[in-house]
């Protein structure tokens, strides 16, 4: 394995992407929610703008519950594939536990061909569990469903003809899984929460990881990344061959104060609706510290933070969540513009290796 297998070229510097959960929440400042149709159209528009601004990746999450609109996230990614030309198309994440890995592979391999080799999968276990009831699974199988189906997905990615037997899906006997992606294989990542134990699971498996970070000092998340790399090495892999991505809240405005003022109501209300607890103001305020992973601030401060995180983590990709909690589209556009004009050139300048 090498970074190339994951379509990552370190010479191009730290990859910068946008990720959306596909949440469909009201804008708390206006007390209004746009239609699902408008939200979906705007997500596709967001992908186009991200590409125009030079971003490397856009990813869409799968959630099956109230206040979300990308239940069919592969369909959305497919539309994005058609609307764009260069940007990578990923998930954030695909809940492999409650899907059929064969169908997931078929979908993403198809998107890969439609997009000329830009599709990838980030597989996760779901932080909300309503989909287990909806799709007919038992929550008691939460861990095992993920592990078994994720392993099968990896097998399908490695072998075109698959023979497989497990607990949660009918047997596959010399099953020919088609279509095959452009370079034969899709980059498949594992979505990881904050705790080192979660990161170590990706290490045991020998897969790249995307680490979600809500808030807190970079040093906390460094522990998970270190644990991941140590586990890779101890499991017979070479940690240097596996990319790491981080993902977290992002919002840029002219000043840090303005960024905090504009984004906080969205984060707080959005978290209340989807997670049942608001985001403490104290934590949000601390988020402005240069060593905190929350990238909310002026472009200059965000540049310094991302570079500090890069120095600390040695990661290959950063995914920014800037549309959470009903952020209106004009602000999303403004953010992408600030990334393209100010943040991205600086990040690339300092992370590109010649």
């Amino acid at each position: 394995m090498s970074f190339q297998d994951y379509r990552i070229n370190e010479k191009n510097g730290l990859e910068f992407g946008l990720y959306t959960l596909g949440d469909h929440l009201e804008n708390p400042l206006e007390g209004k929610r746009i239609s699902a149709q408008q939200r979906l159209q705007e997500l596709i528009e967001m992908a186009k703008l991200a590409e125009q601004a030079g971003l490397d990746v856009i990813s869409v999450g799968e959630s099956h519950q109230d206040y979300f609109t990308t239940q069919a996230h592969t369909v959305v990614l497919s539309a994005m594939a058609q609307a764009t030309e260069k940007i990578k198309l990923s998930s954030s994440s695909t809940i492999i536990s409650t899907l059929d890995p064969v169908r997931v592979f078929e979908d993403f391999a198809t998107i890969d061909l439609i997009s000329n080799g830009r599709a990838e999968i980030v597989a996760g276990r779901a932080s909300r569990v309503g989909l287990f009831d909806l799709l007919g699974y038992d929550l008691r199988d939460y861990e095992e469903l993920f592990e078994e189906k994720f392993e099968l997905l990896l097998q399908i990615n490695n072998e075109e003809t698959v023979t497989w037997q497990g607990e949660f899906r009918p047997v596959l006997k010399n099953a020919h899984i088609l279509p095959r992606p452009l370079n034969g294989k899709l980059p498949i990542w594992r979505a990881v929460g904050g705790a080192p134990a979660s990161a170590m699971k990706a290490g045991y498996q020998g897969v790249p990881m995307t680490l979600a970070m809500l808030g807190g000092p970079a040093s906390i998340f460094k522990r998970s990344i270190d644990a991941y790399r140590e586990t890779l090495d101890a499991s017979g892999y070479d940690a240097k061959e596996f990319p790491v991505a981080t993902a977290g809240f992002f919002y840029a405005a002219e000043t840090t104060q303005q960024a905090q003022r504009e984004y906080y109501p969205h984060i707080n209300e959005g978290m209340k609706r989807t997670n049942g607890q608001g985001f403490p103001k104290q934590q949000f305020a601390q988020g402005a510290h240069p060593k905190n992973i929350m990238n909310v601030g002026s472009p200059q401060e965000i540049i310094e933070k991302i570079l500090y995180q890069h120095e600390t983590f040695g990661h290959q990709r950063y995914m920014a969540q800037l549309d959470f909690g009903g952020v209106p589209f004009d602000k999303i556009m403004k953010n992408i513009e600030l990334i393209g004009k100010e943040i991205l050139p600086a990040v690339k300048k300092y992370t590109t290796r010649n």
Partner: protein
Amino acid sequence: MSIVVLSGSTMGSKTRTAMNAVYDQIKNQHPDETVTLIDLADHELVFSDGRNYLEYTGDTQYVTQKLMDADAIFIGTPIFQASIPGSLKNIFDLLPQNGLRDKTVSLLMTAGSAKHYLIAETQLKPILAYMKAQIVQTFVFMDERDFHRKEIVNEDALFRIERLVEDTFILMYTYQSVKQAKEEEYGF
């Protein structure tokens, strides 16, 4: 402000009797505040299976939502087998990790024997602290002798309940107002 009075056991009567007195005392001292009494004996709750509290249904959803919306919670609990009852521990397990953040929580313990006096200190307060509650340090401890046929017969106990209600509201109002002033300083 939203106040919940929680009677944490599904069996026995002492805790409920005491929490009725707490409820009446709150109504007496703060007639304008919203108070809800929840007796776990009146509700069918499932055991926590780790999901977010928003995703439960029925009584479990009702009780967890009331607690999460509360600014202050009066927890009343008996002591079984030298510990809190499973029904109360299940409440903590159903709530998120920091589920008591910004909430003022006070305690009323009932027990068969004064030998259990330190259970609140050694077993209950650490849970509340972990869940980030603002804990009212003094608690009310009542034993068998304070009750007779579902009535409180020890007048001293009623004074202690009166003080518990006062202390809880003082801490809640103080914490909320200082916190609000601090948050206004953040400017967002």
